[in-house]
């Protein structure tokens, strides 16, 4: 019941590829896409990538099919964490609209659920999940308004990866009961993208209900974007900006977002 979004399309140095992906996404009916920059630690001092301005790609953003609005492009950073030291929320992180983490071990998964300042926790889809997903940390994450991501492109590429994707997705949806799940592409090529209604159907195969599956590409993604905005605020309540822009509105939105992420208990806490 909200705009369709694909919060994970891979960044590519090749401008035509990236441009093609965004155009195809708009054509398929996605109103928002997030370009994903992956941060992997191969050696100690890995440099954090800087998001490129979208206007380098397009003079005018493509219009979403069937609408008169053009597509919104966000930037997202995904940290592949094999060690707790890998995730360090620094100022560089703030340049991104969304921050995601791929925890490789059970400990890191727990830590990500409990206290990492992230918007999205990706469950690795291209390999066998080395651990059981436990209910307690997942519930904490849901309460904090953090979302879990399933990417579907590995399932398109190869039948082994497809097996991993489906089994990992099923073990995730089993635990979180269809709440706080988003499904995104992770596409590296335009032809790997699929339409939003197709993904809503695919969600059923991943163990979501029909409506939860549709939420996973729309409503939940909207919550993720709002949650992303709160990272630059203090507790999602106060937001300072250099210029005094329509301040009132931003505050309201942020507050409201906090409520959305978690169940009612959270709201009470806030009101205190």
């Amino acid at each position: 019941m909200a705009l369709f979004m694909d919060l994970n399309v891979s960044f590519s140095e090749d401008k035509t590829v990236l441009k093609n992906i965004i155009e195809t996404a708009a054509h398929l009916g996605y109103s928002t896409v997030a370009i994903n920059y992956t941060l992997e630690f191969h050696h100690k001092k890995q440099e954090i990538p800087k998001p490129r301005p979208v206007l380098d790609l397009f003079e005018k953003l493509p219009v979403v099919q069937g609408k008169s609005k053009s597509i919104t492009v966000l930037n997202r950073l995904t940290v592949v964490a094999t060690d707790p030291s890998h995730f360090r929320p620094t100022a560089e992180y703030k340049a991104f609209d969304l921050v995601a983490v791929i925890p490789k071990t059970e400990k890191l998964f727990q830590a990500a659920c409990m206290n990492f300042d992230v918007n999205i926790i990706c469950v690795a889809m291209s390999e066998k999940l080395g651990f059981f997903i436990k209910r307690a940390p997942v519930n904490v994450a849901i309460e904090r308004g953090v979302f879990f991501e399933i990417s579907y492109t590995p399932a398109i590429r190869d039948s082994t990866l497809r097996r991993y994707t489906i089994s990992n997705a099923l073990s995730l949806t089993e635990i979180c009961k269809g709440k706080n799940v988003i499904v995104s592409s992770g596409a590296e090529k335009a032809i790997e993208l699929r339409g939003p209604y197709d993904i809503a159907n695919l969600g059923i195969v991943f163990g979501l209900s029909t409506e939860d599956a549709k939420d996973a590409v729309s409503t939940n993604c909207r919550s993720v974007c709002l949650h992303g905005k709160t990272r630059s605020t203090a507790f999602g309540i106060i937001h300072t900006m250099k210029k005094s822009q329509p301040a009132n509105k931003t505050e309201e939105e942020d507050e409201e977002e906090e409520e959305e992420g978690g169940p009612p208990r959270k709201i009470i806490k806030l009101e205190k």
Partner: protein
Amino acid sequence: MRRADATEEPAAFERRVYRNAAAHHYMKIGLVLESGERNIGAVQFKQLIVSAVRDLYGEVGGAFNFDVLCYDESALTAVLRVYNSGLVKLWSALTLLGSYKNKLCAVRVMQVSPFLLALSGNSRELDLD
């Protein structure tokens, strides 16, 4: 309720409700090939989908019947008919279909409906530009 009243009116008309009673779903799909290849016959097309279903669901899960009601070879579009129970399977198999003869491809599902008639009058296709 109105309906109940209506049936009680002097033998004028009869109303029947078929709730979720359609046996089939219909899908309007198009195949996109990265290579831009166009020469796929109807039989090959169906074979491609059958094997996609079998790849994903195996022999037992993939053993449901579906029909290619019409197929346009020049545009690579088709209308499929499938039993309700097979819809999710067929649709997801089409979604996850990624290659044809080792070349990348994608199936774009344009419309899905339990009524074939609805496929002929989709207002989302009303283009005034």
